[in-house]
């Protein structure tokens, strides 16, 4: 037969359980908007029953543990998608800064190429006109300046991205240290009644931050999380974090090395660091090569046209463009041509318009005009080569934008999925509040009832003595 004392004990346990559950609910509500917070649910366990003769009576309820509700699979997907989004954003940011240089204006390369050919055609109507000759020189210098500007835009972007690589590596090292420090703390709390969920949430947020910088592979072990880059370079193992290093390569670019000094630059393909490296080492060099090739071959072709005619003084035409430090007529290397190209002529009279040595002849100007439709050694006319470059820039920017948009939408969906498991629903917690409040009230009522019964029992003994 149960005693009042055991009933009181059960009621007190119920009060504690309800109180503990309320605390968990309270914590959930408080952290409803905390980034990375995983909701906790109290695990209520029935206490083992007691036996009295043939009777078995329940032992009440106790909170076995507080459990964080997680979805590891979705969490991993979010990390991967975060890497992809950051990589796309890194490329998009760069391309959005490059694109204006290739957008049609009064000073872009395409407009200036057209203006140069137009000025030459106009000169053909009066080849000895000083103003028409000056217009050709001005157009030539404008084109050279446009090439310089485009080249500077691309190389400046490279310099900025180079600095970003160093910054990203520094951040990676900070984060891996913090993540490694949390592993033993979390391991110590596992299997105890204390909830290690808070520390795990903290660690997950750090891993998410790390995913934004570079792609990571996460595995759970008895010593905590083990992190490595997507290509297998270890970052965190147990309590140990592995520091990445940077070094300057012969081309001036910053390379990333693992803790053993091995160059892992090319293996980093995602995250802000991956996107930065991709843009710095592949995207921009490709555009620069096309730009340099156009400047070099266009300039060389113009110089050749100059050499086939005579200037206003009857002398054979000298170079129209030059690529310092190379001195004409030596051929300049392609690399750097767009950045160095400048006008070589210093006087309008030096334009080699004549084909017969007289000042009034325009016979050589046809050799300049022909360049507009002539195929340069690279295989396209100057106009087509530039249009192709514009297409490349537009396409790269558009693709990065699409990737960024797509990953944003995907992340939204994944976060919705995660929140459906781990997120705090105010409505649900409000309902839990009522539930646990009612349970507490009921348990308190039981305590009150048992107290009354104690009082009656005590009173029974006193009446008999009287």
């Amino acid at each position: 037969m149960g005693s009042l004392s055991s009933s009181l004990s059960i009621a007190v346990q119920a009060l504690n359980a309800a109180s503990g559950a309320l605390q968990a609910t309270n914590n959930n509500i408080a952290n409803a908007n905390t980034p990375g917070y995983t909701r906790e649910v109290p695990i209520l366990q029935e206490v083992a029953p007691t036996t009295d003769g043939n009777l078995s009576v329940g032992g009440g309820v106790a909170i076995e543990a507080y459990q964080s509700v997680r979805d590891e699979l979705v969490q991993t997907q979010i990390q991967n998608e975060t890497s992809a989004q950051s990589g796309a954003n890194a490329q998009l940011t760069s391309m959005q800064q490059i694109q204006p240089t290739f957008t049609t204006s009064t000073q872009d390369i395409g407009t200036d190429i057209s203006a140069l050919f137009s000025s030459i055609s106009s000169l053909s109507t009066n080849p000895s006109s000083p103003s028409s000759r000056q217009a050709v020189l001005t157009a030539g210098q404008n084109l050279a300046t446009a090439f310089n500007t485009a080249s500077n835009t691309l190389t400046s972007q490279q310099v900025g991205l180079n600095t970003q690589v160093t910054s990203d590596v520094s951040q990676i090292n900070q984060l891996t240290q913090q993540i490694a420090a949390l592993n033993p703390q979390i391991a110590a709390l596992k299997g105890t009644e204390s909830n290690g969920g808070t520390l795990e949430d903290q660690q997950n947020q750090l891993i998410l931050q790390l995913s934004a910088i570079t792609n990571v592979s996460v595995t759970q072990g008895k010593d905590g999380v083990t992190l490595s880059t997507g290509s297998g370079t270890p970052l965190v193992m147990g309590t140990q974090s592995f520091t990445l290093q940077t070094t300057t390569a012969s081309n001036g670019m910053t390379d990333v090395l693992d803790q053993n000094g091995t160059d892992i630059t090319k293996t980093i393909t995602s995250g802000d660091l991956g996107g930065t490296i991709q843009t710095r080492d592949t995207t921009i060099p490709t555009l620069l090569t096309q730009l340099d090739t156009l400047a070099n071959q266009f300039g060389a072709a113009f110089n050749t046209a100059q050499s086939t005619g005579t200037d206003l003084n009857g002398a054979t035409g000298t170079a129209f463009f030059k690529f310092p430090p190379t001195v004409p007529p030596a051929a300049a290397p392609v690399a750097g041509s767009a950045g160095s190209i400048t006008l070589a002529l210093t006087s309008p009279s030096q334009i080699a318009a004549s084909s017969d040595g007289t000042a009034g002849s325009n016979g050589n100007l046809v050799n300049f005009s022909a360049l507009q439709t002539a195929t340069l050694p690279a295989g396209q006319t100057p106009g087509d080569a530039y249009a192709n470059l514009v297409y490349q820039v537009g396409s790269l920017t558009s693709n990065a934008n699409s990737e960024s948009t797509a990953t944003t939408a995907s992340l939204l969906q994944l976060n919705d999925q995660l929140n459906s498991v781990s997120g705090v629903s105010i409505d649900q917690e409000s309902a839990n509040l009522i539930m646990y409040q009612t349970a507490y009230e009921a348990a308190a009522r039981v305590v009150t009832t048992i107290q009354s019964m104690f009082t009656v029992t005590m009173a029974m003994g006193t009446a008999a003595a009287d």
Partner: protein
Amino acid sequence: MRITNMLPDVQYQIQQSQQALATATQQLSTGLRVNQPSDDPSAYSNMVISLGISANVDTYTSNISSVLPQMQTADSAISSMVTSLNTAITLGTQGANGTNSTANTQALASQVEGLLTNVVAQGNTSFQGVFIFGGTESTTPPFVPASTTYNSSNGTVALPLASTSGLTNGSVTTVSDATTGDTFTFKATAGDTVASLITAISNAVSAGTLSSGVTAGINANGQLSIGTNNPADGIVVSTNDATLGSMSAAPGTAVPNAYAYVGNGNSNSVQVGESMSVPTNLPGNQLLFSGANVIGSLNQLITALQSGNTSQVGTATTAISAALNYVSQQRVPLDNTISQLNAQDSTLSQETLNLTTQQTALVGISTADAATNLSQATLENGAVLGAAAKALPETLLQYLQ
């Protein structure tokens, strides 16, 4: 699926609709669907190519505006020459009838001299500083009065030039002949001497470039002297050779009514279409010497009238008739080119319209479409904001007492 917090989704939807609204607003205000390469890379790069073509069309139109007045000026000058030649024929016919007194024929000769002066003046027409009948030697008048003798400025009795005197490498000496209408050019190379020049001039006579009787040598004053022994012929000589100095006509050797052509026979072309270029000048030697010696025949008539030889007057008048036919024929290609340019101007105007239409199709958007897009985007944005305002504040807590 358990829904915990609608805010992130709502924020995303609001952002998307506001982006659409911003895009629609920009399209309406700019009239452009594609404002930068990433909006539509293919369309944008095609537009870049199209703009290049448009720039060329504009240039061709400008070129036509530049050359057309010059060609019309040339046509007008040739028309004046034709009028003068017609008048000369009339005067010549009158002078050949044998009934004129000496005074009359002298008066006729004087009138023909005036006509010759006009023809030469027309031949020396300039347009915006360019002598349009000089070929590509267009910076100085192409028709210059001729003399029988030209002497170098260098060379004196005390210090004469010699046949062995070396000429400056690269120097140019020209001899223009009023009878042949041709110009002989001698460009000195290393080792050339005065003797080399004299020999070259002799060879030019043999070749017919210079008329017979043109010779060169060192005169008694120690100067290089180039001249003709035909008093009716004339030459013009120029040089930039430092050994010779300059060449000037000897005093008293001017040949009345004789003019040499010091231009050249080259012409310029100007592009006025993608595959269309037109010649922009008619060299004076082609106009007044190649088919018929116009100046020579007028000179011949003057001489005949002055001498009163009616037979020679008749012969000279016949020669002028032939010259007139030839000059008239020279106008035909010029007039054809002027017509071509006018037609091409119209063609280019149409091409400009076509290109504008093409560019609009590539990157533009009609006002109607842009306005419709904006209305749609505004409506959708309002709906998203309205839905968010309605749904977000609703929680269970509001209903619990």
